[in-house]
């Protein structure tokens, strides 16, 4: 007989997990379609959406903390600095409203799909993943947490409790773009998240560019990031984007697009995202 448990205390959930045999359920929007719910929902389900302190957004000691069970719709409505505009743009395009009302940020990361929209955004924000088990807490950069296609560093007895983001400061601006075969309810062909910080004389002080769906795990374009730093924060900035900056990508041919198309799309979207941030003004 399948079991279902929705504890309120993290300690209780961790003790259950330590005993083995549980499948974690958050919003269920990846779990159900993947398991054709009726027949194959994994035996024992541990629903983490009732856990105290697992949802909500706060700032502490220079870090923004987003609880793992925070729903995309709560993120869209949250009062956050402009560095998080890209995260909100991504949230507003995850499925549709009904999905955003259930789906969580933690589920998106744990599912570790190459097309998960949250991954490039949070890579670009240097996010860290906080995990808990009955053995204690640990934390690691998102870049280490996702180890491959649908694979993570999470142990079977662990829960992701939060995403922690070092405060990018009030001058940081970000922009997210995604491309699918149509505008809604599709798996991304490519996504781009750009974050830029301009210094008072109007030069790029920091740049972070992350691309999703063009490699097994979303990745940062460090050569392009280095290229942009120090350059005037003006309309010429997008022209700095060159083909060789995209060397870390290894897009695939599939039913949605060819590899060459993905690469071209990623390049053009990167230019557009940079241009959009410049057009929005670096400092307000």
């Amino acid at each position: 007989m399948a079991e279902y448990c929705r504890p309120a205390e993290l300690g209780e959930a961790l003790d259950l997990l330590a005993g083995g045999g549980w499948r974690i359920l958050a919003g269920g929007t990846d779990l159900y379609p993947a398991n054709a719910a009726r027949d194959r929902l994994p035996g024992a389900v541990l629903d983490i959406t009732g856990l105290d302190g697992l949802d909500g957004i706060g700032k502490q000691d220079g870090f923004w903390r987003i609880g793992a069970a925070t729903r995309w719709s709560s993120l869209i409505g949250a009062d956050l600095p402009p560095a998080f505009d890209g995260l909100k743009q991504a949230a507003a395009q995850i499925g549709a409203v009904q999905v955003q009302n259930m789906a969580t940020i933690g589920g998106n990361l744990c599912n570790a799909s190459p097309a998960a929209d949250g991954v490039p955004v949070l890579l670009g924000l240097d996010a860290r993943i906080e995990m808990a088990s009955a053995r204690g807490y640990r934390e690691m950069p998102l870049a280490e947490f996702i180890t491959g296609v649908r694979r993570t560093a999470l142990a079977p007895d662990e829960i992701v409790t939060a995403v922690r983001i070092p405060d990018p400061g009030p001058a940081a601006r970000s922009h997210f773009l995604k491309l699918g075969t149509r505008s809604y309810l599709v798996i991304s062909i490519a996504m781009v998240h750009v974050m830029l910080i301009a210094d008072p004389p109007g030069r790029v002080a920091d740049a972070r560019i992350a691309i999703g769906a063009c490699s097994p795990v979303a990745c940062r374009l460090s050569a392009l990031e280095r290229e942009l730093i120090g350059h005037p924060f003006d309309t010429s900035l997008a022209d700095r984007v060159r083909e060789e900056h995209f060397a870390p990508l290894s897009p695939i041919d599939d039913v949605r697009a060819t590899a060459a198309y993905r690469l071209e799309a990623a390049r053009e979207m990167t230019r557009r995202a940079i241009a959009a941030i410049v057009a929005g003004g670096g400092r307000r």
Partner: protein
Amino acid sequence: MPTVTMTVNGKQVSADIDPRTLLADFIRVNLDLTGTHIGCDTSQCGACTILVNGDAVKSCTMLAVQADGAEVTTIEGLAENGEMHPMQAAFKEHHGLQCGFCTPGMVMSAIDLVKRHPNPDEATIREELDGNICRCTGYHNIVKAVKAAADATGG
């Protein structure tokens, strides 16, 4: 078997169910409220949209046990004293349906939409209904109906 208790359309209901029971099946089979339709079963089409604690969700992508303790509203819960909800009335008036299969989900999503955007323009309505698919109408009359309902309810 776990017992679930929730308020559906203002009435408290309670049942012992297999924990794997989807909320959509619980509503349709256990409660015999068949206005909530199942079109795809994979969270794509939106025909099964209901309100859980006031928010639109797809009931095919949720377990009934997850709604334990929640306030659930289905299409059957909208009319009051035999009077259609303004959104239902607007769909009727503007012919926002043909076969009607998508309509219950469309109406529930539209109610959530108007709650979040009391005065939506056409672009907002089209964008916000992206989680609901209609194979008949071409959406034009649905958009008109939602606009009219928003105007009528004093957006």
